[in-house]
């Protein structure tokens, strides 16, 4: 490719419309505002992780993921900003950007620990609790019968 074509291609690429990428701050701050989360949410965040076990949850259930209403450019008050930063810092995983509710924020760390390779499509479509239970079930099946394990 000659230089002229290269420059033209580059310019054409630059002119193309690019979709706005999901930003974890916008996502979490929107949830904080929408649900009116306060500082005590961080305490729940610390304690709740140990309770997320299949035994405790009992029967397998499919949760419907709520449609997320996210601001494209979120601006929040100081307290909300500090809380958002703390949540992002505590959760610290790439699944957080797909959370649509406070519950999913709580679930995302456990889910990421269980399977860090879930596709964005799955994370976007299914509730984190459902995904967590699904991953647990998969893991149990692998333990009991490794040859029939799903990929």
């Amino acid at each position, binding site marked *: 490719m000659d230089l002229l074509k290269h420059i033209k291609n580059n310019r054409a690429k630059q002119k193309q419309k690019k979709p706005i990428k999901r930003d974890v*701050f916008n996502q979490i*701050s929107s949830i904080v505002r929408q649900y009116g989360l306060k500082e005590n949410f961080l305490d729940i965040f610390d304690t709740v992780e140990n309770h997320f076990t299949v035994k405790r949850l009992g029967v397998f259930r499919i949760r419907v993921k709520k449609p997320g209403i996210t601001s494209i450019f*979120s*601006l*929040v*008050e*100081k307290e909300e*900003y500090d809380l958002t930063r703390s949540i992002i810092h505590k959760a610290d995983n790439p699944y957080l950007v797909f959370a649509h509710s406070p519950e999913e924020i709580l679930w995302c760390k456990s889910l990421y620990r269980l399977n860090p390779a879930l596709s964005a499509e799955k994370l976007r479509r299914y509730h984190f609790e459902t995904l967590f239970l699904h991953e647990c079930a998969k893991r149990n099946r692998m333990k009991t019968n490794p040859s029939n394990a799903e990929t």
Partner: protein
Amino acid sequence: MKQLFDSGLELAVESDFIYFPLLFDPDIEKEIQAVFHSGENIGQFNEPESKTVIKIEDNYFVKGFRLDALVKNFEAIDPHSYQTMKNECFRRYQLMREVDGMILDGNLRTILFQVMPHFIKKNKGLNRKKLSDEEMLDLIGQKINIPDSYYQEAKTFTDIEPLKEILKNIGNQPPCPELPGNGLTSGRNLQDWFRNAVHTKVLADEVDRITTSLQVRQQFSRIKPERIATLLYIADSGALELDGFGFIRKNAGRKEYHVYKHSGDYVLKDYYGRNYLFPDCRVAVSTYMPSKPFVMEKYKHPFLLEYKSGQEICLKHFNPPDELTAQRIIDALEEGLTALRYGYDHRRRNGYHSLDKLWVHIPTIDFDDYRI
């Protein structure tokens, strides 16, 4: 503004400017950190005139607008809220109704005291003198049922002490309440200050009106309350009809009127001597443009082009007046009435239409239904 004051937000005031809590995102935080922690940029924030962001008790506030500018321009920013606050202020000082302005309405006074006496005569027979202003008001008072509230209002109207008191208070008041001091403040405090500031401005703007009101009321203080009640009623309603003569206000803001006189029923003859009974209509003249007399109702006549309302009467030698005076209103009305009643010549068939059918293929108005 109401939403802002009612929001419960903690606001800050600094150098007469209102500061709002700064909203954050990661970029804003970085900028703020950079500005407040590097020595280079602090300078611009320390200068009193250019403090864009200030920090009070670990909270950041961003510059909004000047409080006195808000008061000064509030009428343009939010006309509806300004009007509400203005009315609230008028109620507080009993200046709610603009009766003084109505009474000062020159057109109304001309119609009432100069035109009306020409058409309404009290005494019948040979002794027919024109009614004076007071006699005219008495006559109207006798013939029209004026609500009691106007008599009460007339008493208040002649009492000039409250107005004197208001003027005295305005003179003593500062031009604008003292601005809130620097520091944190609640929306509620700012709202109270803002309301007082707007009320002060409204009263200051209305000083001329209150002074004029006082002068008018001093003039009227010697007139009987019954006559003032009549005048207040007419000024308020903007319409009156008495013995076939009347007027109606068409534009309250500009104080313009249609002055009219009923034609009464009348008979015209056609070419063959057959009689046509024409129904009553109102012939009117408007005070806001020098126009020919016109009929107010849907009406047909040889001197009217169509069969509809608001048509000018065809007058051959009529020049619309450039300046409106009582005599010109009287002349125009009489010209219009005379034209309708006596202007049609059955031999010449003058006007736009003929009373009898001419059997030509020209669309015309049919008067057969008026034939007697």
